[in-house]
């Protein structure tokens, strides 16, 4: 999943970005409203974490711009303003959630996860495809009851495919949602990671879970 973090206080932005990356998210960080808008307008993020007091373009104006452009990315406001009025104004401007500084990082993670789940219309934290089960809260993957160890990047790729199980997902989409601007755009990086994932998921005798659609992309599970 790819998250856009717009926060001007550098130590906070750095810590949150690191924490999210540890959890397998691809993270873009913007330190002011205008660069935040530049990232957001690409439309490839699964969640936006937005500070309100930003240089150049304040958070609420940025949020209004995002909604005016009909970008339906979930937005979590992260701010020191904690009055009921502030929360109401933020939510009314089109935010999906509101978290007041200082906060517990675990709570931020849980809220981001819940927002992403809602975006992909998944109700619970457990995603199942055939005999594959993904616990998105604990980031545990099991197949037929057997635990499968994945790296953060592999997990992110699998979660994205699982959220869109049965649909054809293009390489570009994978690139946009699993990688951030930090990653070098090597042409075959997606194929390489899909290869790693396939090897780990494969079980002797069982049908392959990830299929390739030539010229289109990949499908996890049976096409719907």
């Amino acid at each position, binding site marked *: 999943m790819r998250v856009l973090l717009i926060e001007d206080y550098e*130590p*906070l932005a*750095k810590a949150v970005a690191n924490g999210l990356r540890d959890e397998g998210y691809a993270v873009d960080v913007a330190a*002011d409203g205008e660069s935040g808008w530049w990232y957001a307008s690409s439309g490839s993020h699964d969640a936006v974490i937005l500070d309100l*007091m930003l*240089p150049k373009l304040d958070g609420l104006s940025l949020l209004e711009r995002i909604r005016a452009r009909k970008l339906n990315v979930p937005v979590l406001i992260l701010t*020191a303003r904690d009055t009921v009025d502030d929360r109401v104004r933020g939510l009314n401007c089109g935010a999906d959630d509101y978290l007041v*500084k200082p906060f*517990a990082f675990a709570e931020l993670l849980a809220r981001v996860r819940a927002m992403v789940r809602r975006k992909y219309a998944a109700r619970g934290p457990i995603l199942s495809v055939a005999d594959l089960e993904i616990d998105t809260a604990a980031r545990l993957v099991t197949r037929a009851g057997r635990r499968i160890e994945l790296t953060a990047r592999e997990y992110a790729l699998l979660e994205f495919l699982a959220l869109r199980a049965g649909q054809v997902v293009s390489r570009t989409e994978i690139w946009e949602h699993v990688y951030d601007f930090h990653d070098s755009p090597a042409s075959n990086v997606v194929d390489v990671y899909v290869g790693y994932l396939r090897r780990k998921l494969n079980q002797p005798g069982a049908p392959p879970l990830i299929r390739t659609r030539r010229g289109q992309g990949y499908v996890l599970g049976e096409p719907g």
Partner: protein
Amino acid sequence: MGSIRRRLIAGALVATAALLSAGGVALDRVLRATLVSEFDATLAARARTLAALVEQDEGLIEMELPPELEAGAQPEAGPEYFELQDSDGRVVRRSKSLSQGEAASPLLPPAADAAVAWTMPGGGAARAAGVRFVPRSDDSTGDPESPAPAAMMLVVARGTAALDRLLARLRWSVVGVAAAVSAAAACVLLWVVHRGLSPVRVIARQIEGVQPEKLTARIDMRRAPRELAPLVQKLNDLLARLESAFERERAFAADAAHELRTPIAGLRASLEVALTRPRPAAELRAAIEDGLQSTRRMQGLVEALLALARLEAGHVSLRPESFDLAELLRHCGDGLVDTARRRRVEVSWSVPGCLLIRADRVRLAQVLGNLLDNAVSHADEGGWVEVAAERRPGAVAVSIANAASGLAAEELPRMFDRFWRGDASRHDAGTHFGLGLPLARRLVAVLGGEISTELTAPGVFRVCLVLPEGAVHDASMR
């Protein structure tokens, strides 16, 4: 300033008592005069009646008196006396109880034409009144030889004990009525004043209800009498000023808490994320450095807040000394060379070689460092800063201008608000809290100077600082 109530009541009572006394005395006088003149009229009438009894027969005066009067009667009205004087004022006849003979002084001096007070032979007050008359002559023949009767005077005196008793009773009645009226007036006044002051109590209760947490309350003007309206108005004005001052303080506290939240969030996130899993030493070190950065920011913020709070509370002691302001300016500028280079800001100086001034050097350094830092940090990137200083009569002026294309004129008045930050300054979230200018202004005020800001041209921001020269022409100059 005692109690208004007591003063009002005392004043009104004194006035009432004085008026009643004056009225009582006047009434007493009038009554006495009326009754005495009535008494005198009765005496005169009595005298006329008696005079009718006097006859002159062939030069002899005859008088047939009722026997009781002859003896010096004691009628119910009091002892009564008479006296008949001839035309020369000699006593011809008088009541037997009065002293007889030549030595006897007449009851009424011959010249008297009005009643007089007289003391009876046995003591006791009396009044005497007389009538002049020509005795009736029995000589009906009209004998021309007989002499024409001479005018005589008949005097009647009567004791005034009854009249005096009546007058005394009247006087005591007047005094009694006056006392009763005064007492009643006191009660009425107490009640009236109590009622009259009830709006004051209503206002007092309203004032009592004003709590520091709820300064929006105002005293109801409609319930205040017209005389108290100016007072209530002033109280309401005071409340409004207090409310806005409290509001400012509350907003300041909220802003301070708000400003602290971000570095606290940063510190917490740095530590929590560092602890989520085992990490190599380099990553832990980076997290600790980030934590330190947040801690330094919190410390800077708290120190700036404390400095401002101390200045605002007036807890500041100055250590004036004589020094060269030009040298201090250049010293402050030296510390900003790196920032200026990084931001490609060109700093130009037009400061004389020496500008002696007497002031608190440390605090002035704080102010100048702050203003210069602001100019260099907030000047347009790749722009310029101009520092100028000059001597004026009795003062030294320092002006620091910088290119500030993004600054609007309407932002100028807000610059000295605590936590105001120009937009760009948030880039440099490490060192600027929006407290520098408020601090500088307070410090300059403490130093006896003035600070002002202006846009000299669109996109040219200038801070001007005027400081009193102080007593520089002392030891350091010699």
